[in-house]
């Protein structure tokens, strides 16, 4: 596998390929639109950006914070350009301002406003922020990284696709250290095993 760091406007491929995320086509050539990492051997031309805000997608599981109660529902901050909305029809309990909730993106309109459903209140715990583009590494293949994190820290974890991670119990400081380490090394291979070793080493 050959990976390279690309910046906006860098050539990814002169051949025809399937178009993935964060690339664009001009005169038949494929270019990166972001600062990130491109896998040049892959049949799909795409770039994993270094930074970026959360763009809600249907079915995404998110962690949010209730910021406001309105007549028909609640406004929930989800680390996107817009806050999202949940209708009171879909929730039984009353939500408090400042409450942490998990939920699922039910719909996104043409200007990226999201509606959230399946809302559950997460009691207590902390929210730890990470970049949404790093979230897939935090979860890993078949949730392998998530399992390693849960086991290694003893914490109850909920990783939102929007880059907010809810953690409760266990060694929270170790959770934060582990997340920061994954952020830094997200582009390195064999990260799951590395993290397992890191957590074992740092366990109290």
């Amino acid at each position: 596998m050959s990976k390279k760091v690309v910046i906006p406007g860098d050539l990814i491929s002169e051949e025809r390929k399937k178009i993935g995320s964060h690339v664009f086509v001009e005169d038949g050539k494929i270019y990166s639109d972001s600062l990130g990492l491109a896998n040049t051997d892959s049949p799909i031309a795409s770039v994993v950006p270094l930074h970026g805000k959360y763009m809600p997608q249907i079915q995404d599981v998110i962690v949010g914070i209730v910021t406001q109660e309105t007549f028909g529902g609640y406004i929930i901050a989800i680390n996107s350009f817009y806050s999202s909305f949940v209708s009171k029809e879909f929730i039984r309990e009353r939500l408090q301002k400042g409450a942490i909730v998990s939920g699922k993106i039910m719909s996104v309109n043409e200007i990226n406003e999201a509606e959230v459903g399946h809302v559950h209140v997460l009691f207590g715990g902390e929210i730890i922020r990470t970049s949404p583009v790093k979230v897939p590494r935090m979860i890993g293949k078949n949730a392998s990284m998530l399992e390693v994190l849960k086991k290694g820290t003893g914490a109850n974890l909920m990783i939102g696709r929007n880059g907010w991670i809810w953690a409760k119990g266990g060694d929270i400081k170790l959770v934060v250290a582990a997340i920061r380490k994954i952020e830094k090394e997200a582009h390195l291979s064999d990260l799951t095993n590395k993290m397992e070793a890191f957590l074992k080493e740092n366990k109290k």
Partner: protein
Amino acid sequence: MNVKEKEIEYVKNGKRVDGRKIDELRPIKIDVGVIDRADGSCYLEWGQNKIMAAVYGPREALPKHIQNPYRALVNYHYRMATFSVPDRKSPKPGRREMEISKVSGEALEKAIFLEKYPNTTIDVFVEILDSNAGTRVAGLAAASVALADAGIPMKDIVAAVGVGKIAGEVVLDLNKTEEDAPDAVDIPIAILPRTEEIVLLQMDGLLKLDEWKKALKMGIEGCKKVYELQKTALRKAYLEAEKEEKVKENAK
């Protein structure tokens, strides 16, 4: 004073007042990701010019009536610190700052995939902490690096440079002494380097057509040099983490 000015030889044996060649840039230093709260940021030194640039957004455009349902708005603010110039600048934004903000924001609009973020603004703030001619192009170069750092999708990095004429010679990247020369002509220029599309171009002074042609060529070449430095800085910012890791592993 007038007598003194006439005595300056702006170009002598192909060398300029500060020892540079005709087509030589001043030293440029670029640091990426220097402002923690910002979505993207850049500190840039270009000769004596010292510039902080930060990007916030895309974020909801407010008040709502300015929102464009088809694309994001670019809101560029160029400002000079009161102490960044020899005579204290008034803290109120002046006409010059407003004009620079307008043309610089428009230059960036061409590079950004604005249609991806309807109803939002991308706020770009450029603060000049120290100046010695050429701050608008230096600010624009810093701003485009900050945009890339913020993860804003773009066609290319906007590169910018000043070209001009002093003592009848076309030169690259005028400094303050040169800009103050009696017949000086200043031409700020910004391009998308990959396609050489010109996205900012201004000029004031007396210029002949053949001089302009020479200046344009020199400007595009200059932009490409700046572009290389911008790219290097961004790649370095990405690779820093990897390098740190390697150092640690070697130490083991």
